[in-house]
């Protein structure tokens, strides 16, 4: 446990919007195979941190290292090729394409056939098989040929997972994967995430409001508050941490109840 490799690291990572310090000097070390949760009240800068990690935003200052290699400022599509993938807080899929096509496109993205202009996709069975495997894993096989926009919300969230799964990535950044999910579906969904990541030895960075999930699944937890890292540790340590409790755990529960 103590000698796990660091796969993703940030050094003094900051992003300012004008006068607002959305993310302010974050030093984060994420270890291989961990499920590392980032929690904090609304506006703590978690989403901005995510946008920095996956390359949507470039940092005002600071560095991001992947396997010790500087990846600061690389565009999102490059990061995908380096093994970092992301799911979104608001469902983000290809609405008019079929569920199968959504996943097949994800599988194809990291291959070398993107510029084969005139070969039918059916002649590249590799991606097709990968897509079906991912769909089977996420129990979406029956819905494979339905346009993605017709899925129920829960199925769409699982489709997001299938998209990640089809890509053989090392690191998943999950931004509130259970957002908008009916509460009775949440445990099953997170169990699926947990099973999938353990099966594939994925490193997962998770932003989540549901404290039960965070406490039960996380290997480590980082707490953000007003753009800064307030505390970091195992779930037990965080739960005991008085500073965390005093500073804002209360407000967070209020947020969660809204």
């Amino acid at each position, binding site marked *: 446990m103590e000698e796990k490799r660091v796969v993703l690291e940030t050094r003094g990572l900051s992003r300012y919007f004008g006068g607002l310090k959305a993310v302010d000097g974050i030093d984060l070390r994420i270890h291989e195979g961990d499920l590392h949760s980032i929690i904090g009240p609304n506006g703590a800068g978690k989403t901005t941190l995510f946008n920095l990690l996956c390359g949507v935003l470039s940092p005002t200052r600071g560095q991001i290292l992947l396997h010790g290699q500087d990846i600061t400022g690389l565009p999102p599509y490059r990061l995908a090729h380096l093994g970092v993938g992301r799911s979104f807080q608001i469902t983000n*899929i290809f609405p008019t394409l*079929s569920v199968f096509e959504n996943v*097949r496109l994800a599988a194809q993205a990291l291959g070398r056939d993107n510029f084969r202009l005139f070969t039918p*996709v*059916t*002649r590249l*069975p590799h991606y097709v098989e990968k897509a079906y495997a991912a769909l089977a894993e996420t129990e979406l096989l029956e819905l*494979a040929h339905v*346009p993605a926009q017709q899925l129920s919300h829960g199925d769409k969230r699982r489709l997001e997972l299938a998209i990640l799964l089809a890509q053989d990535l090392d690191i998943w950044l999950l931004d509130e994967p259970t957002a908008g999910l009916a509460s009775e579906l949440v445990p099953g969904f997170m169990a699926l995430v947990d099973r999938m990541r353990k099966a594939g030895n994925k490193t997962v960075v998770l932003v989540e409001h549901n404290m039960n999930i965070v406490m039960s699944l996380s290997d480590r937890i980082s707490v953000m508050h007003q753009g800064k890292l307030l505390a970091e540790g195992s779930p037990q340590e965080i739960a005991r941490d008085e500073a965390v409790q005093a500073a804002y755990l209360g407000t967070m529960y209020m947020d969660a109840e809204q």
Partner: protein
Amino acid sequence: MPQQTNTTTRASLWPGLLTMILFVLVPYSYAAFTGTPQPETSGLARVHSAAESIYCVKGISPVTSILLIELAVLLIVVLWAWLKQGEPGGKTAVFHQHGWYLFTLALLIAIPFIIAWQTNSSPCTRGKAFFWQSIYIDVFILAILALSYNLMFGFTGVVSFGHAAFFGTGAYAVGLFMKHLEWPWWLAILASLLLGILIALIKGFVGLRIKGLYFALFTLAFAEVFFLLAGNRIMVNITGAEDGFTFTVPDWLNMTKNRLFFYYLTLTFLTLAFITIYRLMHSPTGSVLSALRDNEERAQMIGYNTFHFKLLAIVLAGIMATMAGILRGLALKGASPNVLGLDFTMNPLLMSIVGGVATFSGPVIGAFMLRLTEQLLRDSIITIGTLSLNIGDHWTLILGIIFILSVMAFPHGIVGTWLSKNLHTRNGWITLFQRPKTNKDTFVQSSHPPSSTKHKETS
């Protein structure tokens, strides 16, 4: 998998053969029935005169004539085999999945002769049949333009209001190269195509830095610069300013003389454009293009450099639109500033929408509908009481109203509406570009399982 590939390759020869038969038999049987001079009876001369009588080509060397026939036939066979390649389902699938395309192509090949037969005129000399061939040539050129527009607008989701820049460049460039630089036809065409690619690259590299509507407006302004320059008096010695200019083309390419040949030439290019888009949109690259249209941000996130794909779409669409322009320039043996005007952006846009945005046959059907309707209405006069109205004079207005009505009532166009009825997928209507359930717009779909279910079984 390899087994399957074999069967499909063999199966795919059938449509080619059929096309070849139609290509050759229809003109021959026509000649036989109407008693036009029979081909002579020895070797080369026979083929030569066959070429002459089939395409009504005059002023062509015997060797070129053979080459032309063989090329035309080969092109279609090869392209058809190519189109077919990789479609699961064996022999019958060709007719199940592409039957209507095949039928349409056969019909278009035969149409000059059908018209000639119906109007009792010769397809090779001035007369009614000759006249209608020129209308169809115009339709084909517009259809290529609409296909190209649809590739950008419908399939990739890149909105451009400056497609006329490509079209006009093609028409102008080919003429200017042949007239002022006195280049041979092939060099002029090649150079014009390269110029089209260059414009596409400039548009792509400069324009794609800016997002969404900015790009649309950028292209609008871009086309407008061309329009202003071509029509300006400063350029009078080169482009002929507002009046445009004319140039001479080789006899065999001369539409006035060898119209039927030109008819098949444009038809070939239309087929080529259609098949290119069909194949492209079934390829890995094409599926990325649809993904871009749906959700560009997500496409980036899963690892696609979306800039490259958009650039590719613009370049391909640019080549097609430029080719349409070149054909137009050659057909009219001249160009005037109106080919760079807003009309040639509006027309393909309208044709795509009327026919069906993001469908394969939609833009072609749109082009046929609008251009032929215009022709049929041109001289019709409606009389209501004492008021008589010449509809042809009001065509642009009618076009505008059709435009508004079709955007309001049939945003998915003829093909899109038909498909969504056919496949009971009406629930997606609220999205921006509702696409049919699968992206094959054949009419026999429901009787045939979608191609990808096959793989479900094999995997």
